[in-house]
């Protein structure tokens, strides 16, 4: 019998890829922080509450029962379909992202349990080319949702993305439709989708699966929008409203169900999975 309140691992440590013992300045309040205290606090500034980006691995560890995560399609990766060369080639950028992150692509997908409730999940990793969506990211998200349909699982996607991966041209745009089709089938199977929006989530990801959750949560102060603030300012020549495109702004404008601090995310996700499963014991 699982209980949604079973959150003993709530404050587990999240390992970072920065060597321990390092000092750093908070990006938001400039406070000098000890790396290990940041880790203990789930990469949230103890002084101002700024939520630093998490890697996909950190995020998954934070939201699943220990050792329950089973990755799918770990080796699926991008090719360079258009042989794209801009300021440096796409192939080179892919290679350096892989080396930097130890990932094959910008999203990690699989299944896991939380409080022993099984669910399917995907976590995007912003370090990998701004977690932009090309064919591989689109395919992985789609397969994760298909696996969820096959196994009758609720699904969670933790988003962070600069949008479509323009180095794949029109094929990246098509991933928006492909992933949305997969959301449709998951929906028609009567299964719930939870989205957690993290900083930043913009462009083609916002205009596809990130906006299609039955439940949409966001981390505090996350930037969330379709067009980037710079483009909007340029186009409209207008001053942007206070807090424009922040999670708080979007809550106010009716887009988000709840803003959830990172330290409460695990507990709330557990509760939601419990409610969305009709309170069934697993």
């Amino acid at each position: 019998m699982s209980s949604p309140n079973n959150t003993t691992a709530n404050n587990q440590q999240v390992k970072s890829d920065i060597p321990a013992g390092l000092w750093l300045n908070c990006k938001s309040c400039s406070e000098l922080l000890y790396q290990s205290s940041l880790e203990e606090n789930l990469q949230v500034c103890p002084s101002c509450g700024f939520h630093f980006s998490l890697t996909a691995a950190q995020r998954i560890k934070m939201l699943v029962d220990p050792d329950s995560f089973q990755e799918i399609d770990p080796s699926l990766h991008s090719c360079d379909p258009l042989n794209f060369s801009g300021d440096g080639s796409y192939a080179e950028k892919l290679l350096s992202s892989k080396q930097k992150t130890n990932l094959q692509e910008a999203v990690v997908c699989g299944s896991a349990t939380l409080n022993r409730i099984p669910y399917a999940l995907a976590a995007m990793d912003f370090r990998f080319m701004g977690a932009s969506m090309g064919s591989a990211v689109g395919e992985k998200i789609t397969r994760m949702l298909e696996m969820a349909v096959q196994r009758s699982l609720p699904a969670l996607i933790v988003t962070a993305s600069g949008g479509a991966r323009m180095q794949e041209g029109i094929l990246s745009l098509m991933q928006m439709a492909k992933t949305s089709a997969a959301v449709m089938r998951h929906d028609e199977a009567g299964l719930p989708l939870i989205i957690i929006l993290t900083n930043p989530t913009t462009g083609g990801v916002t205009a596809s699966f990130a906006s299609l959750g039955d439940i949409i949560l966001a981390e505090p102060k996350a930037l969330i929008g379709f067009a980037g603030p710079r483009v909007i300012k340029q186009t409209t020549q207008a001053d942007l409203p206070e807090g424009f495109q922040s999670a708080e702004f979007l809550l106010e404008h009716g887009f988000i169900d709840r803003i959830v601090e990172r330290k409460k995310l695990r507990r709330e996700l557990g509760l939601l999975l419990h409610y969305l499963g009709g309170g069934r014991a697993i």
Partner: protein
Amino acid sequence: MISCLEIEKPILELEDKVGELISSSLDRDADLTSGILLLREKLDLLKEHFFLNLSPIEKVQMARHPQRPYPADYISLLFSDFLELHGDRRYADDRAVFGGFALFDQQPVMLIATRKGRDLASNMACNFGCAHPEGYRKAWRLMRLADKVGAPIITLVDTPGAYPGIGAEERHIGEAIACNLRDMFRLSVPVISVITGEGGSGGALGISVANRLLIMANAYYSVITPEGCAAILWRNNEAVPKAAEALKLTSDDLKNLKVADEIVREPADGAHRDYQKAAELLGEALLRHLQDLRKMSAEQLRQDRYEKFRNLGLFLE
């Protein structure tokens, strides 16, 4: 005065010359037939050569040509009894997207189209073809109605993109597009989309989840404008032609990448020089695809549309 692009000038100059020669031959009652014939041949060759050799950025310029037929022009030439239906029933009537029932081949269809406007006043009224969330929500309302009554849906798309504005974000343009992307897969009627000019990213895709995607020969469809791409990846404006090339956004590219199912030919002079002929060519293609799709059951249509998009993308594993 016809407005023309820099790249079109040689054609227009030669046409003027032919015109002059004809009128002077009439004036002087002199027989200049052989000279005229020669110039006409040269003109035809020049036109053929011109369209064969357009670079990707020149094709983008053709797609944006101020004289190019817009969806509204095709609608008046190809459809009858168009009955426009307004509003998203939630907030506003977005003029950048319009739609309604019409007759095509004597049968009812639902038309959804974008609108740029021809002069500054109409440009402003329809926001230069850049839709707000209300445009996508209106489109969905009409598509759902078409689905209910069994009318095929034809969308005609010519938009630079969805509008990047404050109100658009406040009313969740990303969500409006996303819902259309998801819900168009639920439709049980045939859906055909045509990119007639500019296929501007998510703004175009938001009404183009179709069983068949057609693209006019001199139209383009891209994830980002060449200007936007050049600014981000090259950080300079001079790279716009390079970006247009790299993005693989022309009709030929889209056919090769299996995104477009058919390239709709344009008149030898380009669609902007002969609306009637351009409409005929489009009408022929629409009719053929519609006849094909009408043979499919509701479930087949849904499955066909799903598979078309499910298979798009190139990756390794």
